[in-house]
């Protein structure tokens, strides 16, 4: 019962965060200079035409009502239309671009979590020995070297010198899709991998110093079982929370990576929209990215009490 109540509460938090992110995107747009009517009417429109269009689009209504209708539209997937080109609905543009962004981001997340937890555990087991120092140094590099510095280095090595992987996305693809996505995923994963490695190491070292581990050693639990079942199961909980927060780094990194590799993703589309001042597409892009971030963190929040009986039993 408690578990159900906690999950319900977290779903509620998630919903509130989604409304908050909608509100921020909407409020920012209504504070910006020049509204949708001015942009859509074009440069030749008379002031009367702009006023008429504004009334037609409902932009002269009070702020709360406009926000309510924006939310109602957003729930149905209606995010307005692009100002430019064929004036495609923003929902359709996002539907076309979200799969690439989501694929790259989730692959990078899984890669980062897998390698980070493994390396962090190994570093903790070999604490202060050679392997640990190597992992720590690489980890520090991974946190400090920006992804747009890492990207040209890896492209130079793997695409230009070794000629194994394509340099940027092509349309149509001339090779298997995973080859185009491999470098973006690896580059995107670098920073979260480093963060998760350091966190796993710290958490694991703390766990290994606790009494139940000494008891387990004393009663002769085999080392592998000790490290991966007894210790890691306890040490991994803060790491799982960090997976949620580092997904934020990953999403902002995807703006850089998508632009660098010319991938057809939400980030690349949003930057294009900013340069053309295409407000509805900017809003849509930020909203989708923010929603993705909130959903991943919601998943983490729900997973935690399932994994950890102590959180499950705690009073809410």
């Amino acid at each position: 019962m408690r578990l159900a109540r906690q999950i319900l509460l977290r779903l509620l938090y998630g919903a509130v965060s989604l409304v908050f992110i909608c509100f921020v995107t909407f409020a920012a747009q209504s504070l910006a200079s020049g509204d949708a009517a001015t942009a859509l009417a074009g440069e030749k429109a008379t002031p009367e035409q702009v006023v008429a269009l504004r009334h037609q689009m409902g932009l002269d209504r009070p702020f709360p009502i406009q926000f309510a209708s924006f939310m109602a539209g957003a729930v149905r997937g209606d995010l307005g239309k692009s100002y430019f080109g064929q004036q495609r609905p923003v929902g359709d543009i996002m539907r076309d671009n979200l799969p690439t962004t989501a694929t790259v981001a989730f692959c990078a997340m899984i890669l980062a979590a897998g390698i980070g937890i493994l390396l962090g555990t190994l570093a903790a087991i070999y604490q202060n020995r050679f392997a640990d120092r190597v992992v720590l140094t690489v980890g520090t590099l991974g946190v400090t070297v920006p992804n747009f510095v890492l990207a040209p280095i890896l492209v130079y090595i793997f695409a230009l010198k070794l000629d194994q992987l394509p340099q940027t996305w092509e349309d149509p693809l001339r090779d298997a899709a995973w080859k185009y996505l491999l470098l973006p995923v690896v580059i995107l994963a670098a920073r979260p991998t480093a963060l998760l490695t350091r966190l796993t190491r710290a958490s694991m070292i703390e766990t290994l110093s606790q009494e139940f581990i000494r008891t387990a050693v004393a009663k002769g639990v085999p080392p592998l079982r000790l490290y991966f079942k007894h210790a890691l199961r306890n040490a991994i909980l803060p790491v799982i929370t960090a997976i949620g927060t580092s997904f934020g780094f990953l999403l902002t990194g995807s703006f850089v990576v998508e632009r660098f590799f010319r991938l057809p993703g939400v980030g690349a589309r949003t930057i294009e929209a900013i340069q053309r001042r295409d407000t509805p597409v900017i809003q849509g892009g930020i909203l989708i990215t923010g929603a993705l971030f909130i959903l991943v963190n919601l998943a983490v929040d729900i997973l935690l009490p399932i994994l950890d009986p102590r959180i499950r039993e705690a009073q809410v």
Partner: protein
Amino acid sequence: MRKNPLLLVGIAFLVFLALFAIFGPSAGGGITETKWGAFEFPSSRHLLGTDQLGRDVLARVAYGARVSLAVGITVQLLALVVGVIFGTIGAFGPKWLSVTVMRFTDGMFAFPDILLAILIIGLFSNSSHGGGALGGFIISGFLPVVVALSITAWPSFARLTNTTAASLKDREFVVAAKALGAPSAYVIVRHVLPQMWGILLAVSMVELAGTILAEATLSFLGIGILPPYPSWGSMINLARDDMVSHPLWLLWPCLILSLTIFALNFVGDGLRAILDPRRK
């Protein structure tokens, strides 16, 4: 301080960077002079050669340092002021106000870092702005970047101030000052805040690295500092088109950016070890 060579190396690099940012941009004919050939190799006139338009690379890298430091320091000062005010209200204000302020801070903190900056720049920057040389630079690139990054940077200072101030709130010297009849504002300014400058300085060094990185990211994406003014981010973006034939031109901005980030992290960590009251 002697026990931490990385701290000294970091400080030395930052001093060099500041001098470079002040005197470097006029080297080799300045940042926009194009009368030389494109992609000239390093020579006595152009120590790092020239770029694809024949501009001096050393001058442009130095101007990038000026941009990074100007954006970074302005943003950190603004974020520090706002963060300290909000954090102090959160620790000492009446309950209803402090809860509201800290909830708002949490909400802003939860927003993925550069996403909010991208939104703000996307909706507020005005790329078609004219104005004079310096005016154009400030309005079309510098100002939107500073505003956007300040708005994303203050919550971490607010949180730090809040937790530190809350831990100082019940210490003897604060209680004593209050018992002697000192008004809250006086206690905060004379007794609480002076305890925190050290840790705030240390953290702002690490945060400065984050801000410089964020500015470079925005400029790399083409929505930060706009041409013709150089920034390390936009230089990396430009140089990647010619990375096959001229990898060196990509190297310089990448190298100095990475070194700056390293140096700031060394200095921040070193200062924190010395100045954090909780670690003593």
